[in-house]
């Protein structure tokens, strides 16, 4: 058997298990008496061990085995769980995580793993001495927990017919998973049961949907099977079919397959190129007088649209994938920094393009670290300020039109405006006469790379805050960052990112001889210059739009373009990012186009008004204006 082809599956599934291990450990640490997390951990580590051993990653399997021993001892009551056990298990999970990554590159575990194995063994041994005479009961649970589904494979020739049974537990029944298991147990009394779906572990979930399917090889008549299954009680329906073909793939397996992410990336890129080619075709068709070309063009246009939508759909990933790592990050950081932090997470189901989500993860870690390090005060300081000793950190996601807003909010001390202002004045970043800083000015100063925030915001950490890093990453995505902070009340950062990176609906504009692209996400409306009243906002020119002044940006001035239209009626794009707006004055609107964002490395010295580049339908390159930089 060629194991290499299973490596990717091994890694992804192992990571899922280890992710859940972290969650379970946290839950267990909160409630050391709880049984469910221990069982869940035991199963997850057990599965990992089995997979690692199958793959031939012996050191990894060995470490998993030791961790499993410890868990088993606790499960069986041979060992009373102590704080140091949690620490050991957390470290084991880290080491296993690392080991999974290393194993596939042919490397063994790190040197620390050996000491960990020893520590795990010692902990189990210590427990065994403490509670002798309690025979090992724990292992039975593990055996019992194994699915009943494997039996059917044995027994070479069996003439009994196979039946496919689907049961539904009544929707008003309590503990439907347990009820379904009872029905399964009853059926097992009649013959050999196999292909149980979902797996036994799914039945333990509170959101189990009440549907269970299995195959049974039995001499009992279908009516008898029906009666026996119903005798479990609370069964709403039973459907029994003669198994049509032993080779039938079970329905659950058909519904989902795993795809290597790089394949989806390649598919997305191809879909993007298809869009560009489609745009070109549509342009040619428009210029041609052949009606058939027009029709074909339109049809292809629709099909490409559908392909693009499907690929995007396949790439959407719930933000939970990233959010899930924060309980652990927050716990560790809070411990290290001597803070008490309660993490609240909301909107984990909101979906984003996988590529966007991957890009957002690091900035989020930065912000969460900042919130704990610089935002949330040590318990003593909080109590003195009349706050609860435990700080609150909220991580939430919500959908806004074509973008997703991710918020990181703490109830800590807030950013010290006066200190930042003083520092900014000293650095010559703001007018010496300025008396205060609005939130957006504050953000702009904080996000200047090299602005020495660490010394200013807190003396606690020597590390830079890295707001500039966050800002850069989010901007590259065509997103925007917003900051709200209040002294003593806390700080909130909002990251607005587009749903997907690859294909962006955009408006093509002309200034002089140049063409630029503005993502439609951020265009709230288009109006006409010189048909709109002009006013002044501070010392800037502004347009009055529905009685609100909106500052203007004349693109030809901003970008120093000669030969632009400077008088008469011109189109204006009202660009909005969060609450901030500005009115972009251009020469002409050239229409909408779907563009594929190309990676973009701005040459040194280039003004920061662009977030990327693209190839237009006619094959010419164009720069993408960064809406967030313009408001």
């Amino acid at each position, binding site marked *: 058997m060629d194991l290499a082809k299973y490596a990717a599956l091994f890694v992804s599934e192992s990571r899922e298990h280890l992710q859940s291990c972290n969650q379970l450990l946290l839950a267990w640490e909160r409630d050391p008496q709880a049984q469910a997390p221990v069982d869940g951990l035991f199963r997850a580590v057990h599965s990992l061990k089995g997979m690692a051993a199958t793959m031939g990653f012996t050191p990894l399997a060995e470490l998993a085995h030791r961790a499993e021993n410890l868990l088993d001892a606790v499960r069986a009551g041979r060992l009373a769980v102590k704080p140091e056990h949690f620490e050991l298990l957390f470290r084991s999970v880290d080491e296993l995580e690392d080991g999974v990554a290393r194993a596939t590159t042919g490397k063994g575990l790190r040197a620390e793993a050996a000491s960990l194995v020893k520590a795990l063994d010692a902990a189990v041994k210590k427990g065994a001495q403490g509670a002798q005479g309690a025979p090992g009961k724990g292992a039975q649970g593990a055996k019992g927990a194994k699915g009943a589904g494997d039996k059917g494979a044995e027994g070479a020739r069996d003439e009994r017919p196979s039946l496919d049974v689907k049961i539904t537990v009544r929707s008003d029944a309590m503990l439907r998973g*347990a009820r379904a298991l009872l029905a399964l147990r009853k059926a097992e009394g009649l013959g050999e049961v196999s292909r149980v779906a979902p797996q036994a572990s799914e039945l333990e979930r509170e959101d189990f949907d009440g549907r269970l399917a299995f195959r049974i090889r039995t001499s009992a008549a279908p009516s008898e099977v029906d009666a026996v299954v119903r005798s479990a009680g609370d069964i709403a329906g039973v459907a029994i079919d003669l198994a049509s073909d032993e080779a039938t793939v079970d329905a659950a397996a058909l519904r989902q397959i795993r795809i290597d992410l790089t394949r989806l990336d390649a598919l997305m890129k191809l879909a993007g190129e298809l869009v560009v080619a489609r745009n070109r075709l549509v342009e040619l068709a428009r210029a041609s007088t052949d009606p058939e070309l027009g029709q074909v063009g339109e049809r292809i246009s629709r099909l490409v649209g559908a392909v693009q939508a499907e690929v995007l759909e396949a790439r959407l990933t719930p933000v939970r994938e990233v959010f899930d790592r924060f309980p652990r990050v927050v716990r560790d950081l809070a411990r290290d920094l001597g803070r008490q932090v309660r993490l609240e997470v909301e909107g984990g189901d909101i979906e984003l393009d996988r590529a966007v989500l991957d890009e957002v993860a690091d900035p989020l870690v930065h912000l969460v670290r900042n919130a704990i390090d610089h935002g949330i005060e040590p318990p003593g300081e909080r109590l003195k300020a009349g706050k609860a000793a435990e700080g609150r950190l909220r991580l939430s996601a919500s959908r806004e039109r074509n973008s997703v807003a991710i918020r990181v909010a703490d109830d800590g001390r807030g950013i010290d405006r006066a200190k930042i202002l003083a520092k900014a004045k000293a650095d010559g970043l703001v007018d010496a006469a300025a008396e205060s800083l609005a939130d957006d000015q504050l953000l702009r100063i904080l996000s200047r790379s090299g602005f020495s925030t660490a010394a200013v915001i807190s003396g606690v950490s020597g590390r830079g805050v890295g707001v500039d890093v966050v800002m850069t990453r989010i901007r590259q995505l065509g997103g925007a960052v917003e900051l709200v902070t209040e002294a003593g009340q806390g700080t909130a950062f909002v990251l607005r990112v587009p749903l997907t990176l690859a294909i962006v609906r955009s408006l093509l504009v002309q200034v002089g001889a140049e063409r630029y692209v503005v993502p439609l996400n951020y265009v709230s409306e288009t109006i006409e210059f010189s048909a709109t009243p002009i006013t002044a906002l501070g010392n800037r020119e502004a347009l009055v739009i529905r009685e609100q002044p909106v500052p203007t940006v004349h693109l030809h001035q901003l970008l120093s373009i000669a030969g632009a239209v400077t008088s008469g009626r011109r189109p204006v794009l009202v660009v909005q990012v969060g609450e901030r707006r500005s009115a972009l004055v251009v020469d002409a609107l050239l229409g909408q186009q779907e563009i594929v964002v190309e990676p973009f490395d701005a040459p040194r010295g280039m003004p920061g008004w662009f977030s990327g580049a693209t190839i237009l339908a006619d094959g010419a390159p164009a720069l993408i204006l960064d809406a967030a930089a313009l408001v």
Partner: protein
Amino acid sequence: MGHTVLVCDDAIFMRTMIADILTAAGYEVIGEAETGVQAVQKYRELKPDLVTMDIVMPDMGGIDAVREICKDDPDAKVLMCSAMGQQALVVEAIQAGAKDFVVKPFQPSRVLEAVQRVLG
């Protein structure tokens, strides 16, 4: 004479309530236990037709008690008494050999249905 029952729960309140429901329906409660260890002892001693078993009890929980009882007597008829949200535990209890379960708060009719199912 009706079937005999052993009632296991660490709360007198729950034991009394279950006993009342069963007695009123003609079953005979021949023993009570308030820990898992007691439950196993009394089962060996009394050989009841049915056991009602709380999941969370001191001194060996209900699940381990079921495991012990079923080791001696695989046909033992044990009915688990669980609370909402204990799905995983009930699943474990069934894997350990429990034959059915009821969920607190108890409705007498549901308890009797389950008892009848178990006693078949």
